[in-house]
């Protein structure tokens, strides 16, 4: 009898993982479809589709894993909209992006990512493990943010990463000030 129960429980665990995989695949497909449709409308280059695929893979992995990662999925996507909208609205590079243009792109992406990082922290403030969940959320910001850029380039990516580092620094200072007061 107990062997049968153990077997049933093992089957239940497998079924649970199967269910999570289906759930995650559905989420990833949804994310990929939405991104690809947006990119098609905007007429972006093939490199953006690779970024969309990476974003969908991250989204699927988060949904499958659940827990802190699952909780961070939606806040991460929302926070990523900040650099995406800023880049799409303020950047207008032509064929080449170098020199002054690249500097401008880095600045806009950096500011967007910093705001996005802080927004993610605000969205995750009630989470019991908010620092861990915040890290999961901000890992999505570069991929979402890049989708709004006119080019996928090191400048934009560097700007996004610098912005996130700035957001982390800002968030690191706030608790210490609170504890000192």
């Amino acid at each position, binding site marked *: 009898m107990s062997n*049968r*129960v153990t077997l*049933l*429980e093992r*089957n*239940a*665990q*497998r*079924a*649970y993982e*199967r*269910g*999570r995989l*289906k*759930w995650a695949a559905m989420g990833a497909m949804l994310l990929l479809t939405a991104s690809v449709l947006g990119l098609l409308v905007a007429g972006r280059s093939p490199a953006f589709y690779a970024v969309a695929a990476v974003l969908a893979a991250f989204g699927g992995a988060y949904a*499958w*894993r*659940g*827990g802190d*990662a*699952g*909780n961070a999925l939606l806040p991460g996507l929302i926070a990523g909209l900040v650099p995406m909208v800023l880049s799409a609205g303020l950047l207008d590079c032509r064929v080449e992006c170098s020199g002054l243009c690249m500097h401008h792109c880095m600045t806009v992406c950096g500011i967007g990512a910093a705001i996005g990082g802080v927004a993610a922290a605000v969205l995750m403030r009630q989470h019991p493990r908010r620092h861990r969940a915040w890290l999961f959320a901000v890992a999505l910001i570069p991929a979402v943010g890049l989708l709004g850029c006119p080019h996928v380039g090191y400048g934009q990516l560097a700007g996004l990463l610098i912005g996130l580092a700035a957001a982390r620094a800002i968030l690191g200072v706030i608790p210490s000030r609170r504890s000192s007061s």
Partner: protein
Amino acid sequence: MTGNGSPTDELDEMFARLARGERNAIGRSFELIHPLVRRFCRRLLGNAEDADDATQQALERVFERVSTYDPSRRALPWVMAIAAWEVKTIRRRSTRNRQRQASESGEELAGNLPDPESLAMQRQLLEVIEELTLALPEGERETMKHLLERELGAELADGSDATFRKRKERLLTKVRTVLRNLGHVK
């Protein structure tokens, strides 16, 4: 949501955790629902072998779907609705097997006569609902009975089978009468 000690509250909490992807809730959830599902299937199917099959299928289906579980709903009726679906599937399979055996042996089929298992199922469903809600506090019992009646009634209904629909209606009327006599509904 935090439990107040009632097993159904604990089940709600465990299922909410599973829906969030907390895998360490699998063991306790299994412990809570396995005896209930097994008893439910045994009472409705009678045959131990069929009941074990239905239990296994139902548990796998429950755990496969739990990621889509809505924590604002009660978990027990949700689980029992899935179990009822599996019971119905096993019953259909048994009926088909019997029909095939009968046609192979050249016997005449019973046609539109009610399936004895269905009739037994209707009788037992009332007892099962009663049994499932027995351990609940008085206030929760009434609500859970309504939920079970609604969920199980819907799952046991077969849209393609008018006879079974009529039987289900009769069953629901009986359930309501019993609840009315017990003073649970006006």
